[in-house]
């Protein structure tokens, strides 16, 4: 029953049902565990990057061979890439395990189909255009939007969950000589070891961009209300909702 409050049609529900949980316990717990692991992955990933802030395409690359991107950063040897690597793998385990928990339970509970798959009519040209226009002029979302996801949210969440995270894991595996000795396709399908490293970096940038936009939209919609909803599972003032 609580599931129906995710849908836009929730506006016609009775007051008692409007106060039902916005986010399930599982979504909330995995959201914050994922937040911790993602911050650790970005910080440690940057630490590892500083050892060699240069990118190549293909199997091999190094100083003295042509690069495809040179970041304006110093080469820092023997420092951040050490603890960075220890931290990166610990955080990656947390990220993968919570991600698996989230993805499996989301499939079983039909969370993805009901709440993230674009609802009927949301994918129409006019709906997409409206939503995009509202976002571009930073229009504050209407109060009832606290109860469901708009189409841009749905699409970006689906891309993050089912494309960017799997791509990060795939290209991460491709950089492990141990893993690719068992599953060589991780690296061959990535276009080589250095290509995997380059894709890993660009996909990480897209994830960081997603987080920045996500946090910006939360601030726009009301930081305290939306953050409390992700902690307590309920929308403050839900009862007085129009």
């Amino acid at each position, binding site marked *: 029953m609580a599931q129906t409050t995710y849908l836009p049609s929730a506006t016609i529900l009775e007051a008692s049902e409007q106060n039902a949980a916005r986010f399930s316990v599982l979504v909330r717990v995995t959201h914050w565990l994922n937040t911790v692991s993602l911050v650790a992955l970005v910080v440690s990933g940057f630490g590892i990057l500083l050892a*060699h802030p240069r990118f190549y395409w293909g*199997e091999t690359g190094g100083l003295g061979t042509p690069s495809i991107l040179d970041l304006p950063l110093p080469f820092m040897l023997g420092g951040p890439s050490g603890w960075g*690597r220890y931290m990166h793998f610990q955080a990656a385990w947390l990220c993968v395990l919570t991600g698996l928990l989230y993805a499996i339970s989301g499939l079983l509970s039909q969370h993805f189909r009901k709440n993230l798959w674009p609802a009927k009519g949301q994918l129409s040209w006019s709906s997409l255009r409206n939503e995009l226009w509202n976002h571009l002029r930073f229009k504050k979302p209407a109060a009832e939007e606290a109860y469901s996801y708009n189409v841009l949210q749905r699409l970006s969440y689906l891309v993050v969950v089912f494309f960017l995270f799997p791509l990060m894991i795939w290209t991460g595996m491709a950089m*492990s000589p*141990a893993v690719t000795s068992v599953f060589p396709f991780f690296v061959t399908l990535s276009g080589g070891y250095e290509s995997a490293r380059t894709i890993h970096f660009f996909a990480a940038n897209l994830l960081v961009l997603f987080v920045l936009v996500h946090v910006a939209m939360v601030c726009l919609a009301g930081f305290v209300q939306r953050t409390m909803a992700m902690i307590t599972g309920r929308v403050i003032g839900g009862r007085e909702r129009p």
Partner: protein
Amino acid sequence: MSGNVSRRKLLTTGLTAVAGVTGLGVAAKIADHYGLIPPDWGGIWGPGETLTYATQRLLMASGSLAREFNRSEVSKVVPVSGPQPKTDPYQRLLAGGFADWRLTVNGLVARPSTFSLDEIKRMPAKTQITHQACEEGWSFIAEWTGVPLSYVMNLVGVSEKAKFVVFYPFDESWDSLDLPDAYHAQTFLAYNLNGQDLPADHGAPLRVRVARQLGYKSVKYLQKITFVDSMKHVGDGRGSAAPASGYSWYAGI
């Protein structure tokens, strides 16, 4: 009544906690028995390190082989990582063309031995073209020739009690491998790089090659190999010089 309930609760909680701790202890014992715990398992990064090492050890239990390449794929540039030892014994041996150099093999072996470079070069040779990535991010493909470590291990008769092989070079970067990696078909002692005698900057006269780990595990400038049953009393007990400078002992990544 409520006192009874809380006492029962306390008892159950206590028993669960004891069972949990015992369970963890037993699990750790079993994992250690099967060689799934890395020497640097302690500290805040221990859980991630142990998970990675144990998972990969189970995944690679069948002795999977790292990818090998064609001669046409060999890199034109072989980057040099780290300087050669500037100290006297090494520089003197280098100047003498390593004629006086000897490799010592000892520890848990039936026949502790020393080998000259010529003796090693007369052993059955193995050549392979593999990809090598540095932990920094750069990489290259090269052709290496040497003797399989397993051949030397059979020659000296490694004891069944041995669990690790420790490599001592002329510089500070001592390191170790577990026995599955030591016996692995692509682990060998290389004296030739891309068809030429191993250059001094790449670890002359003899270096380790470990195909399924990052470059820093392939110890250069070898002078001694020791077999041990535990890393606890070797160096600081964390398996290699790497953890002291912040790098993990296991680098299958």
